């Protein structure tokens, strides 16, 4: 049975970045430390570093995403890599090449790194295992979001943001708010917060949007947002997908906003210096009030900037630098 963590090679080094779960604390801290100098590039005239010169990074997006793909593209280009973007339509009606056939073809084009987004949980593992089984261990896989499973670079940039504003993790109370059931971001955030030693992680949302057994991941569940926000240092909002907004999970966006939308009034229950984060794209008036999104406690745009630096650090590390 495949119980060995496939993202760590036999020397204990990170070969791929597929999930935060099981990563040693030092590896996460190392990535956050390594990202720091890259954030300073933003102010420079010449933003490019030659660290990945001659390497080919393939952005393999089996699911639509403009933002994540763009930030990966910018990160790779700032490291001087050649970037190839592929948006692969995977509608079940258009039955075409299998996932692994696609991977084989691209690997044959001398790829060095695959940045993968896929609608199915676990797809990047499948790719990594296939590369290993076919003797192509030199190709790294970066998970840019798989189904509901993981979005490790998003969680890392979130940790970078928290550390930037809060300095340390060991005395924080952090709330993750919204649709945890369908959120790969939430799963990766919870693992990262817990590995970095955050003593209290709260999950806030209605029961229809909480995964079964989520407490076993080390979170305290609050169905009442006001209760859950009391005294927190960090509020991490999640995006509510359009298709979840009405039906059997939720009655309407209005009712959701009333109970779980982050308003200035609810935010006032958190610590006065609490920061508000969101992975984007935001639904204003559904999960977050514009007054909060544009307010002084929001750090949503710095998250985007840090995201490029963190992704540079991850790619650089996986390239063996």
């Amino acid at each position: 049975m495949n119980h060995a963590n496939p993202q760590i090679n036999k020397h204990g080094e990170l070969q791929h970045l597929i999930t935060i779960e099981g990563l040693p604390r030092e590896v996460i801290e190392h990535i956050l430390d390594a990202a720091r100098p890259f954030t300073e590039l933003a102010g420079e005239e010449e933003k490019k570093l030659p660290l990945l010169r001659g390497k080919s990074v393939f952005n393999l997006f089996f699911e639509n995403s403009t933002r994540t793909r763009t930030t990966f593209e910018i990160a790779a280009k700032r490291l001087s890599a050649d970037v190839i973007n592929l948006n692969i339509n995977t509608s079940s009606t258009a039955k075409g090449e299998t996932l692994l056939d696609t991977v084989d073809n691209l690997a044959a084009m001398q790829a060095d790194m695959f940045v993968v987004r896929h609608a199915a949980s676990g797809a990047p593992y499948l790719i990594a295992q296939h590369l290993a089984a076919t003797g192509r261990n030199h190709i790294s896989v970066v998970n840019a979001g798989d189904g509901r499973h993981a979005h490790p670079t998003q969680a890392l940039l979130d940790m970078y943001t928290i550390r930037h504003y809060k300095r340390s993790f060991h005395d924080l109370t952090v709330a993750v708010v919204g649709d945890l059931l369908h959120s790969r971001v939430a799963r990766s955030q919870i693992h990262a917060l817990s590995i970095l030693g955050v003593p209290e992680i709260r999950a806030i949302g209605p029961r229809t949007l909480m995964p079964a057994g989520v407490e076993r991941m080390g979170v305290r569940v609050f169905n009442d947002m006001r209760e859950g926000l009391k005294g927190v240092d960090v509020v991490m909002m999640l995006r509510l997908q359009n298709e979840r907004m009405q039906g059997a999970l939720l009655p309407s966006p209005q009712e959701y906003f009333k109970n779980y939308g982050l308003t200035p009034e609810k935010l006032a229950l958190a610590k006065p210096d609490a920061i508000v984060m969101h992975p984007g794209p935001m639904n204003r008036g559904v999960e977050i009030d514009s007054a909060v999104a544009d307010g002084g406690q929001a750090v949503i745009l710095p998250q985007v900037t840090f995201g490029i630096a963190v992704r540079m650090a991850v790619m650089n590390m996986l390239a063996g630098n």
Partner: protein
Amino acid sequence: MKLQIRNGRLVDPASKTDRQADLFIADGRVAGIGRAPAGFDDQATVGTIDASGCVVCPGLVDISARLREPGYEYKATLESEMAAAVAGGVTSLACPPDTDPPLDEPGLVEMLIHRSRHLEFAKVYPMGALTVKLEGQYITEMAELSDAGCIAFSQANTTIVDTQVLLRAMQYAATFDYPVWLSAQDRYLAHNGVAHDGEVAARLGLAGIPVAAETIALATLLQLARETGVRLHIRHLSSAAAVEMVAGARAAGIAVTCDVAAHHLHLCDHDIGYFNPHAHLTPPLRSQRDREALRTGLANGTINAVCSDHTPVDDDAKQVPFAEAEPGATGLELLLPLTLKWGTEMKLPLSDTLSRITSAPARLLGIPAGRLAVGDPADVCVFDPEAEFRVSRESLRSQGKNTPFLGQLLRGRSRYTLIDGVLAHDGSWN
């Protein structure tokens, strides 16, 4: 044609036999046990199998094995799967009707039986579809199908959502006393689900199937069985709650039987590991607590038998992300070792263990198999209980190489399998 199996440990659960005894076979039937009957004096005319160090038991009866014909020959064929059956010591098997097209017409059933007889391997007992195309709308011509050779009626893994149809199907089957074999899974609660709705699914981001999907469907089936008096068999229990409900129903006088798939005796949702598609099964692997209840329920008789739920799947359908992978695992060759492993771990006498894959399933199917009394068909399995083998793509005869046990060492491969006194599998070269 006379044959003697010498020096073996004869275990026949039906007669509670477990002793060193030779088995004598003449004209395809058991002719004597222990002492040679008349006609075995002239050794020159008698074939001999040396079973030293081996157990000699009735050929295994598997109540659920997919042979994939008709329709899925790219996954497996009758030839490949029946060779796998005898390699696993299985001499009789029942196949669910979820072929393509499903077994809902007598002609399909006759063809399947004809093809399987021609191969002279394991005896095949088809289950007919309870509803046309398994769609849960119109009942099939059950009497015609029964005449063609169907021994029971089933929906395989599908559910009859319309309870009116379910009631009528049970009433009609009960009219002719046909057994009905159904799975307990609520279609809506299981919708899109691919794993037990618990900690592992939460962590991996897999859509869950709650236990209530099983218990709600089971409650419906049990109530309608009480209403109609149909002989109901529940296929492949998965949860502790379901085991408890079956025990309760039986105590309340409902004639219900049930089985568990061999995988579910040993695995739980944690075995999904890093999205291992071979652990994508129907019903889903549930929690450790559920697994313990299945193991105990089988030991105390609440669960009547073990089956392989043999489902050969082609590599293409498994080498995809977990949720997209076709559920199922190959199992005919693992039924014996996995059941022996369960029996050893539960510290049961060998005869009790073997009854779950011989006499008990034969009784469930109502077929003359699974026992070795004088006059019975000489369907025999001879295996070395100590010999280990590694489960690998190469060691499996089945065309399906899909099993979560790949790479594991197990005990209990058939050395010789006889069907009607004819050697159908000789694994002595291993």
